[in-house]
């Protein structure tokens, strides 16, 4: 399958890989379509994502999407991070082949679920 140079760069040199021991939010989400899983850790200060880590078991597109998404939400407010769509992640990667678009949905799902997990921990209504 033909991937863009950006996809291959994020696949072979993924950013923000690992674990945040003192994470304020952690989720593990899976794709029912292909069995990919992503674990996402957020460090949050004043409603802003100050650090982020991920681990993904999946194909090149899933790993690149996770890597790009973490780059895109780092430093953003929770509201801005919530607004990030899978299409924006795919576009930032220079595009994904259509059969791989669902891989970018995994990243979007992980971010939104992590934000809601944090909100619930704070006693707030989930978005």
């Amino acid at each position, binding site marked *: 399958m033909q991937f863009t140079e950006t996809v291959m760069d994020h696949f072979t040199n993924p950013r923000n890989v690992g674990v945040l021991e003192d994470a304020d939010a952690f989720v593990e989400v899976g794709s029912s379509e292909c069995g990919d899983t992503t674990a996402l850790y957020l460090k949050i200060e004043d409603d802003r994502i100050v650090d982020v880590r991920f681990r993904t*078991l999946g*194909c090149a597109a899933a790993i690149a999407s996770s890597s790009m998404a973490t780059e895109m939400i780092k430093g953003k407010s929770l509201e801005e991070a919530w607004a990030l769509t899978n299409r924006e992640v795919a576009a930032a990667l220079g595009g994904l082949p259509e*059969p791989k678009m669902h891989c970018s949905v995994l990243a979007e799902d992980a971010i939104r679920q992590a934000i809601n997990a944090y909100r619930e921990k704070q006693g707030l209504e989930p978005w």
Partner: protein
Amino acid sequence: MSEKIHYFDHAATTPTHPEVVAAMLPYFTEHFGNPSSLYGLADESREAVDRARGQVAAALGASPAEIFFTAGGTESDNWALKGVALANREKGDHIITTAIEHHAILHTCEFLERQGFSVTYLPVDRYGMVDPAAVEAAITDRTVLVSVMTANNEVGTIQPIAAIGAVAHEHGVLFHTDAVQAVGNVPIDVDAMQIDLLSLSGHKFYGPKGTGALYIRDGVAIETLVHGGGQEKGRRAGTENLPGIVGLGAAIERACGDIPGHAARVAALRDRLLDGILERVPEVTLNGHPTERLPGNINISFAGIDGEALLTLLGMQGVCASTGSACSSGEEAPSHVLTAMGVPPALARASLRLSLGDLTTGADIDFLLDALPDAVARLRRLSRGHA
């Protein structure tokens, strides 16, 4: 991308051997006559088709009159199943096959089910082996055909074909085998193995793509699916693919000329590769039968990674291989073969198929033994956060 290709996908396809290409070339330009024509130019074409029919027959222990040329393994499988089912409908409407067949068989069976036939899909054991006793237990007085592949395309397991054929015949049931992966790797004798119909495909044994044959034992009732002219004794119409048929004949003669020698060479490389992987990579599982398997097949799962991601990493280094699952919408994932063998979904998704053959060299094995452990370790760090 590495410029050098390390080809470990012989089960998907093989290059047409230069000797086969040389045999084919005159039939594109010089001897181009239509074998059905009556003038002298057609004589050489007719003789070439007959020669190829004899070469295929000799490789199977059959007679030339029992060989029918097709456009490949898929057409042969379709013809065998649909043809026998339709021609024997008054005798019965039940077919027995296995859960690990190629989609050319499984999708054809699904089609026949929509036409009112019933199909039993036999399970396999953890090694992908079919039990002849299970075949016997599934036979009813409505059964007209048993179809079991000779060797599996994903895990390489070789079935007890002679025993299954014997069981079918004891009950008066016809026996078909999809031998697409087996021809050239496993000796075939249609009489000794009690086979009534056999599918083969040229491009799996260094012949041209788009060529194949169906062996039909003399006397077997089978319906014609491709109607038109009177080619292939009126059973499969269409102007003969003359160069392709010549290539198929040359390829099968070459591939079956020294099966033990070929198998020994390839199996030695395979064993060195497998031993090396087991030694260098932790948490791996071999899928398929430990001994009853194709000489060139390794199907192995690496816990904690995605097989497609591994293929992408290896592909960047010029390694061509295959996986049992594809992360694409609409794809069946993981593999129906590994699932039927009871391989857990996570390990099925983590599978890699390496199929060795004529192109494989010792240098390819060394290269992969260097590249594979690093690639697996890299993906495991990503997915599990291992240091």
